[in-house]
């Protein structure tokens, strides 16, 4: 095993899938010669050529629309939305067409396509480069949504997304790209969609997170251990279909749960996780299920003080976890 960054793992995943299957191709803004704005596709243009690494116009509706058409015709497109914030112009293609295509054709057509989108804040990206979109798309039946937080999961889930017969929204957290490093298993490493992962075992409480917040929760758990609180950290990895069994099992084990995400709280993923716990593990709870999220305000501010006020971080997680431990 080799230690890699998240962005290296994603690039490697795409490279291996393109080498394995000729129907896999990339399309997006600046993915070609430029190698992508974050260099996620760096080197792939040279290796696979302009027919398989396609620079698109600045039109997200076109990127997703082309991908849908290609997928219907037997190709396996990986469409890149440069920033998740820019996905709005492609809403109609994703929600009305891609998500419903299999259902609408009574299963005659699947759409084996991946939409990659860098998401999340904490990078001074301000309003148009910091948004979280998982709850919006998680709400749409017919879409799969994954949000890996480690290099190994990033590569494994990318491969699973490419091989999945249905459209998968693949969310890669910008802040984790070069911040989070980890070992990636050699060989054809595939992580199944729909399976959460206990990243740290504990018995006093469960911290549930995904994406960048996973790293923060693991750090918080380490500090909590020094205070005598044993925190389990459950990485959702897949937002939809969500791993109910893993959530319930961990909630039953510890009886106390804190869900953390940077997306705003209203009708968010934490709300869904809390509902799952209330419906299935109420009798094992020792405290109200708690959540720590970004605020219900229109967008992430640019100003550093305000950005920090917006984003959950290790200190905020620790404070909330201590509150839960003391309950």
């Amino acid at each position, binding site marked *: 095993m080799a230690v890699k960054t998240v962005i290296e793992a994603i690039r490697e995943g795409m490279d291996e899938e393109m080498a394995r299957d000729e129907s896999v191709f990339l399309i997006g803004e600046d993915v070609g010669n430029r190698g992508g704005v974050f260099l996620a596709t760096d080197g792939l243009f040279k290796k696979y050529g302009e027919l398989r690494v396609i620079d698109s116009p600045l039109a997200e509706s076109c990127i997703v629309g082309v991908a849908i058409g290609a997928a219907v015709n037997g190709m396996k497109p990986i469409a890149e939305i440069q920033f998740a914030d820019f996905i709005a112009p492609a809403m109609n293609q994703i929600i009305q067409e891609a998500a419903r295509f299999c259902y609408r054709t009574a299963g005659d057509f699947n759409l084996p396509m991946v939409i990659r989108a860098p998401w999340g804040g904490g990078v001074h990206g301000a309003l148009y480069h910091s948004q979280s979109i998982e709850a919006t798309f998680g709400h749409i039946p017919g879409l799969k949504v994954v949000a890996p937080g480690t290099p190994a999961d990033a590569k494994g889930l990318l491969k699973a997304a490419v091989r999945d017969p249905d459209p998968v929204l693949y969310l890669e957290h910008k802040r984790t790209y070069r911040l989070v490093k980890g070992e990636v298993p050699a060989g054809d490493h595939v992580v199944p969609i729909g399976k959460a992962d206990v990243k740290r075992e504990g018995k006093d409480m469960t911290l549930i997170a995904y994406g960048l917040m996973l790293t923060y929760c693991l750090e918080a758990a380490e500090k909590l251990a020094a205070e005598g609180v044993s925190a389990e950290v459950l990485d959702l990895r897949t937002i939809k279909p969500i791993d109910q069994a893993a959530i319930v099992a961990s909630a039953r084990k510890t009886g106390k749960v804190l869900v953390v995400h940077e997306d705003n709280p209203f009708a968010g993923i934490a709300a869904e996780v809390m509902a799952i716990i209330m419906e299935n593990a109420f009798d*094992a*709870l*020792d*405290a109200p299920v708690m959540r720590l999220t970004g605020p219900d305000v229109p967008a992430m501010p640019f100003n550093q003080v305000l950005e920090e006020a917006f984003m959950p971080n290790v200190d905020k997680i620790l404070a909330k976890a201590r*509150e839960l431990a*003391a309950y």
Partner: protein
Amino acid sequence: MASVKMPQLGESITEGTISKWLKKPGDQVKKYEGLVEIITDKVNAEVPAPLAGILKEIKVKEGATVTVGTEIAVIEESVGAAPTLPSPKGGGEVEKAAAPASPSPVTEEGQGGGSESRTRLSPAVRALIEEHRISDAELSQIEGSGIAGRISKKDIEDFVAKRAQPATANGEQRQTSVPAVPTPAPTPGTTIPLTPMRRAIATNMLKSKQTIPHAWTVAEVDMTSVVRFRQKARDSFKLREGIDLTFVPIIIKAVVEGLKAVPVLNASWSDQGVVLHKDINIGVAVSVDDGLIVPVVHQADRMSISGLAKAIDDLAKRARAGKLGIPDVQGGTFTVNNPGTFGTILSYSIIAPPQAGILAMDAIVKRPVVVEGDAIAVRSMMNLCLSFDHRVLDGVSAARFLQGVRRWLEGFSEQVPLY
């Protein structure tokens, strides 16, 4: 303050066992709302609250047996019509007061917030209390480490771990009517906790064997005519009545005839004399999941075979559904038991006090039998085993009873009316 007493749930009932409290201290109770489940003579009865108010105190724990009239709970009458719910604000304020950094073990005595948090148990804590059978007394010893003294899951787990350590000699006062068995040697195995029904059966059986001098006698009955008749009548009976025609109502009919001929067996022993009962009320043993219930067919002497069949079917169904009422299990004057269904051929039953006898129907088996003219024939034979109270009657009366039953059954013909 008003006290709730163990009610008298039947004419001969002197005590009752608390099966389950439906309310806990601090709960609002409405008038006539179910307050507690009480078990007497193997039946559950829900006792309603005699007045509206707040349940202040539970005086008798679940599983304990007390005599009729004993105070079991205290209810504080509500003054106004509108019950004042405890304000949830109290907890919130306390929460803020207790800074998470300093877990000071302050126990707010008397203050609303403190005591409320102690009694407000989380689902996980409740489940653990049940699992580890932690009594109210034990619970009150546990010091809550949570906000405002709340008892947390961890507090319970720590307590259980501590309790499991060898003999803290913390004499637990578990009231029981059955003598406690000495602590078993540490051999591998598990202990099945006693259900209220198990305790009731144990108490009754022990009392019977210790006070009634049982005598036992058996008669062999040729059931061939009955078996033939039942085979013929079975399908049409099922079609008409919707229930199976079993041997039990036929046997009970025969027993009723036998008791009419020997009234001293339809009786009870008392120090003042043998009490002969006017009605013939037949108890029928019904096995249920966790034990045995003996519902009673009242005034069986006034019923036809089909009437008995229906009464027994109804009682058995309700027994298995746990829907029997107190009158359904009271007033029996004689009992019929049917172990033969399970293939037994000789059964020595224990009398249900204060009755004087119990008859066991054993299995009907085909056997070669010497019949009139010294011929050998294949006949359907059954043993009827009678246990009787030798204080009340002697062997001669018992034999006469069995003979009466046998003659009635052997003389059975299609002329015997079903209705």
